């Protein structure tokens, strides 16, 4: 292979989410001469960002003091919030837990917010490259991280070069910052290679599925925030819903299911649709239409699962590290704070050394510590979880213990060992009809003639062991119906991977019980094109 072309920067950032953008802006504010670039796999900034989102504005106030006079599109203050416990047909208001008290916060589209931050970073001199996936890490001779590799374009499914083939390049930098968000593809490699998780619990996750609706005029009350727990989840599955009312008759609705669910038959996408069709919820959406939809994993491990965030030549920030506050279901302010802190630390220590310590001594970690026992408290079911959450809240996290986290994939039980609960799910009426219909609203696009970006490392397991032991749960947990078991003549079966439908949520990489699915970056610019998610 020929030598790849090389570009040099002082800092290369992988991922233009709130963490990466805040870090880049801060870097330039502190030192305009430093050269900084951001690589983003989405064709446009924000097009692969999916969040709620109600955000805490303090980090924005610090980063861009005048921002309230020049707000991003789709950004309104929260006016009221509620918290309910759902049963199959009823809803009971509960007191809003202090963590989800949203006074002073804003409802935003995080995609739109990032698209609004990007030109401000560019104005400071940051080079932003949307449409390019960082597919690998460049290592220097001494084994330190020395930059990122941008994948080749124009490779056919069989690995040959198409007429449009273009060799990727390398971006070399003394410091690489990984802000790929939850379950980053390169971050995962680095955590393994540098053993960054040697001293923490395994990371844990949830899957969030979301739709943005244009509802009938009069149904949306801008500024209203509603969360629920309970139905349609059984007591052994952690999760809940969010509904955020935006302006112009738009409502964001989403549902998060903890990926530590035990039932191999559980279908997170169906749970979301069941929630929408709950008699108390459905009227909001009747007569409306979906504008955009998608899914994304959420990092839930918090304090005890935070890996070391520093290695020779690189840092992990934001959800790539795992700084999200689960009881609040908020990660944006934490991601921005961590990114800004990294920039500030680099001003003093150009090699990044000591960042991990600085992060652990910062308000980011203090916030995680306070709530560290709430999420794992739900391992023993909803009721004990709620009681534990109340205790941890009253005591402000001063319990002398720290509950443990366990890897999500190991939480799944085998078919023969688990009695799936009677779900009593209802006949649905609201769109979308099925997962394929939903994918249409994600406007996800991948050139079909490219190598499959969902690599199965041991394909023999799928049809033999997995079918028997778990009944191929990938066909159920993937929100985009990427995995299908096809029966062929002669009673044989095979796994078909509809990779072009993938919305890059990373659930399969996390939840597959054998850990044989490896999500890698497809050709740059491929993937969902969300509108205001």
């Amino acid at each position: 292979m020929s030598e790849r072309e090389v570009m040099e920067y002082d800092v290369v950032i992988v991922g233009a989410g709130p963490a990466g953008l805040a870090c880049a802006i801060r870097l330039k504010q502190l030192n305009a001469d430093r050269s900084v670039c951001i690589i983003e796999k989405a064709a446009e900034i924000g097009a692969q960002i999916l969040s709620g989102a109600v955000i805490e504005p303090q980090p924005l106030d610090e980063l861009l003091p005048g921002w309230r006079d020049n707000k991003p599109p789709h950004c309104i203050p929260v006016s009221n919030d509620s918290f309910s416990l759902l049963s199959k047909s009823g809803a009971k208001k509960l007191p809003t837990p202090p963590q989800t008290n949203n006074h002073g916060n804003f409802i935003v589209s995080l995609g739109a917010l990032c698209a609004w931050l990007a030109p401000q970073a560019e104005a400071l001199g940051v080079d932003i490259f949307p449409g390019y996936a960082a597919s690998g890490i460049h290592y220097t001779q001494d084994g330190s991280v020395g930059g990122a590799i941008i994948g080749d374009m124009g490779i056919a499914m069989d690995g040959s070069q198409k007429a449009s083939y273009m060799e990727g390049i390398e971006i070399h930098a003394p410091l690489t910052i990984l802000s790929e968000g939850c379950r980053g593809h390169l971050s995962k490699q680095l955590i393994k290679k540098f053993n960054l998780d040697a001293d923490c619990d395994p990371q844990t996750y949830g899957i969030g599925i979301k739709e943005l609706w244009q509802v009938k005029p009069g149904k949306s009350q801008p500024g209203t925030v509603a969360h629920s727990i309970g139905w349609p989840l059984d007591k052994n599955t952690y999760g809940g819903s969010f509904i955020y009312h935006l302006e112009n008759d738009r409502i964001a609705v989403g549902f998060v299911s903890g990926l530590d669910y035990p039932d191999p038959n559980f279908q997170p996408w169906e749970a979301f649709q069941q929630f929408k069709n709950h008699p108390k919820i459905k009227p909001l959406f009747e007569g409306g239409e979906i504008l955009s939809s998608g899914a994304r994993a959420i990092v839930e491990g918090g304090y005890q699962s935070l890996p070391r965030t520093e290695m020779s030549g690189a840092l992990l920030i934001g959800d790539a590290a795992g700084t999200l506050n689960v009881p609040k279901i908020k990660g944006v302010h934490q991601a921005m704070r961590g990114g800004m802190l990294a920039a500030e630390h680099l001003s003093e220590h150009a090699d990044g050394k000591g960042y991990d310590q600085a992060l652990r001594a910062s308000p980011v970690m203090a916030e995680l510590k306070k709530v560290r026992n709430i999420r794992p408290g739900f391992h023993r079911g909803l009721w004990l979880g709620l009681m534990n959450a109340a205790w941890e809240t009253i005591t402000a996290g001063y319990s002398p213990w720290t509950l443990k986290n366990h890897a999500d994939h190991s939480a799944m039980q085998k078919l023969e060992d688990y009695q799936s609960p009677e779900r009593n799910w209802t006949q649905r009426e609201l769109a979308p009809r099925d997962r394929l219909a939903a994918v249409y609203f994600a406007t996800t696009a991948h050139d079909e003639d490219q190598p499959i970006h969902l690599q199965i490392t041991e394909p023999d397991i799928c049809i033999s062991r997995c079918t028997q032991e778990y009944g191929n749960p990938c066909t159920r947990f993937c929100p985009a119906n990427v995995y299908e078991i096809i029966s062929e003549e002669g009673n044989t079966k095979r796994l078909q991977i509809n990779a072009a439908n993938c919305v890059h949520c990373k659930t399969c990489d996390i939840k597959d019980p054998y850990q044989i699915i490896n999500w890698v970056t497809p050709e740059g610019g491929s993937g969902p094109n969300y509108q205001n998610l």
Partner: protein
Amino acid sequence: MKILVGIKRVIDFNVRVRVKPDGSGVDLDGAKMSINPFDEIALEEALRLREAGKASEVIVISIGPNACQQQLRTGLAMGADRAIQVDTEEKLQPLAAARVFLALVEKEQPGLVIVGKQAIDDDNSQTGQMLAALWNRPQATFASEVVLEDQVARVTREVDAGLETIEIDLPAVITTDLRLNEPRFVKLPDIMKAKRKPLEVIPLADLAITNDNKLTIDHYAPPASREKGIMVDSAEALVAELKNRGLL
């Protein structure tokens, strides 16, 4: 020889097009915008001609607000030498767009103008043809192959009956069809180089174009959604149903 290429900023072909609730237009909020795919093919062809030594300079032109500088920069990163934005907030109809091109043709004196056969937002397929008429020069539309020799272009056109090859004298206008070529990917370092290439902004008013829109748009509406089908259990039932609906 200079080649002028028109590139229009349009809603990306992957995006689901949705009419605004009040019928005043297509909802572009948060939608990905791109170079009209046929224009991208036009630019690719111009670049290949230049790379083959048949042209000396490729100039990309876009008519629209500042946002279309994003597409011009992409054109420069693909390899165009310089760019011109004709700055206007107005949406020009094909005749006015052709007049703008004519004004730039008079200024730049190109040997060839290449544009897409149509823009995928309004699908008019008129600008190239109108420009040829106003300029009083030959045109070759729906090109799937272009060969330049001295002062003529041999162009294979996609027509209803198949393919047709014609020869036209230069200067001329060529409009591109899908099969002409496959546009290249942009190389990252070329994005940086493109930032330093010239991008001239000319206010529409400076070109003294008559912009008398011949069409007024009343409202936009999505196609009627398809009604739910019914299942018939026999050929007779089908015939009866068709008769019933006055279709037979």
